[in-house]
């Protein structure tokens, strides 16, 4: 065989082989470089605040989640302290949020003492209104009866309700109390939701709060709601629907048609990424790293903007 030609008419010359190798190598190098650049962009997006809208917000509120008051484990031995730090952080904001929403798992074991403690702590929030939805930890032994004693005033059914503010229709759903393998809303709540939004014009901005995600974030771990498709079908005609949830203890975003889903982080302890390990058990981070996994979320709504502007702030 010479340098230029093999004897096989279907074979390739050494030069051709080198050329193919060079193109393959170039593709690999460019992939590595591109992957590094995209990865860096992803990391900077996660750390940097969402750009503020040009116009002054018509509404600003804060979401906190999964305080798990009463939890005591190596992942966080002081959940009360980190929750207090989150409250201090909200109170130190340069504006007064229209309301603060806690998206569930206020307590860890739903004892009266834990409910009393979390309610007292939240009374220190400098805001006009405090809203809540229950997590599965808030109805451990009584399907949410104690939760409703403390936080159920003005709600319907298992604790669902809605209200209007600055032209936005807010809906708080309960998808934790009929919990088996994943979130569940139930026929009564779905019928209430259908009627609740029936009178609204299609250009109304809708914000939905729930504890468990209303999208299939990771069904294997129950990070999904089995009858959310029907709930979302009632919201299809609206131009802007934003769903904010807790439960998964980490930031996550997903868009499906007109609906954008945002999972919030926790003030207590992190959980593993979906599928990372056999089960979503508390993750113990190295010393000094816990606060970077905890945080609160600021939400701005500007009239005329379809999407809400979210800013996830780490606990400092």
């Amino acid at each position, binding site marked *: 065989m010479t340098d230029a030609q093999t004897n096989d008419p279907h074979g390739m010359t050494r030069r051709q082989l080198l050329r193919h190798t060079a193109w393959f190598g170039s593709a690999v190098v460019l992939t590595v*470089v591109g992957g590094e650049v995209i990865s860096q962009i992803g990391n900077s997006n996660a750390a940097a605040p969402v750009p503020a809208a040009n116009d002054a917000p018509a509404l600003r509120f804060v979401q906190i989640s999964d305080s798990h008051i009463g939890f005591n484990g190596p992942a966080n031995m002081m959940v009360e302290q980190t929750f207090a730090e989150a409250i201090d952080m909200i109170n130190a904001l340069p504006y007064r949020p229209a309301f603060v929403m806690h998206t569930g798992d206020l307590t860890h074991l739903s004892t009266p003492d834990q409910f009393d403690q979390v309610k007292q702590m939240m009374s220190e929030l400098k805001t006009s209104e405090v809203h809540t939805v229950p997590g599965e930890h808030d109805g451990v032994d009584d399907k949410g009866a104690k939760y409703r004693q403390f936080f159920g005033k003005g709600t319907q059914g298992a604790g669902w309700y809605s209200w209007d503010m600055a032209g936005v229709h807010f809906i708080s759903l309960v998808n934790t109390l009929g919990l088996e393998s994943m979130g569940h809303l139930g026929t009564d709540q779905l019928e209430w939701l259908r009627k609740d939004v029936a009178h609204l014009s299609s250009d109304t901005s809708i914000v939905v709060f729930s504890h468990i995600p209303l999208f299939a974030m990771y069904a294997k771990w129950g990070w999904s709601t089995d009858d959310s498709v029907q709930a979302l079908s009632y919201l299809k005609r609206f131009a802007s629907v934003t769903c904010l949830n807790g439960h998964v203890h980490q930031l996550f975003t997903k868009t499906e048609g007109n609906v954008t889903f945002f999972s919030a982080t926790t003030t207590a302890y992190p959980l593993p990424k979906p599928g990372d390990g056999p089960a979503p058990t508390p993750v113990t981070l190295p010393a000094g790293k816990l606060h970077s996994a905890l945080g609160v979320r600021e939400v701005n709504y500007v009239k005329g903007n379809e999407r809400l502007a979210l800013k996830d702030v780490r606990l400092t």
Partner: protein
Amino acid sequence: MKMKDLLLRLVLAACVAGTGWVHTDLYLNGYRSIHVIGPSFLLTGAGSFAVAVLLIFSNSPVLRLLAAGLAAGALFGFTLSRTVGFFGFTETGLNPAPQALLSLLFEVGALALVAVSFVPVMMKARTTSVVAR
């Protein structure tokens, strides 16, 4: 070089870049947090952009095969995520919209274009083997 070949190659590059754009967008907007899915979206995004850029400069069969591999891999992952699950990750239908549909169109288009690009080579090979006999 024939104008037809150049056009075919550029459309293929556009399809591959489209796949890269969809996967990168989803990676940056949440999917990066998902075990295995995040890194695979990153790989598909970066790999697709790399191959798309190189396809502008060369019609190398290696690049076309890489383009086909990326598209087929993405389609395989898509199918698994709608059926038995992909490393435990499942999605339904053409969600997230419109990214899922766009990605499908780009990937099917890329596979079809790669197949078309190899037709002359295969015909030539067949002719050569017939003559040799």
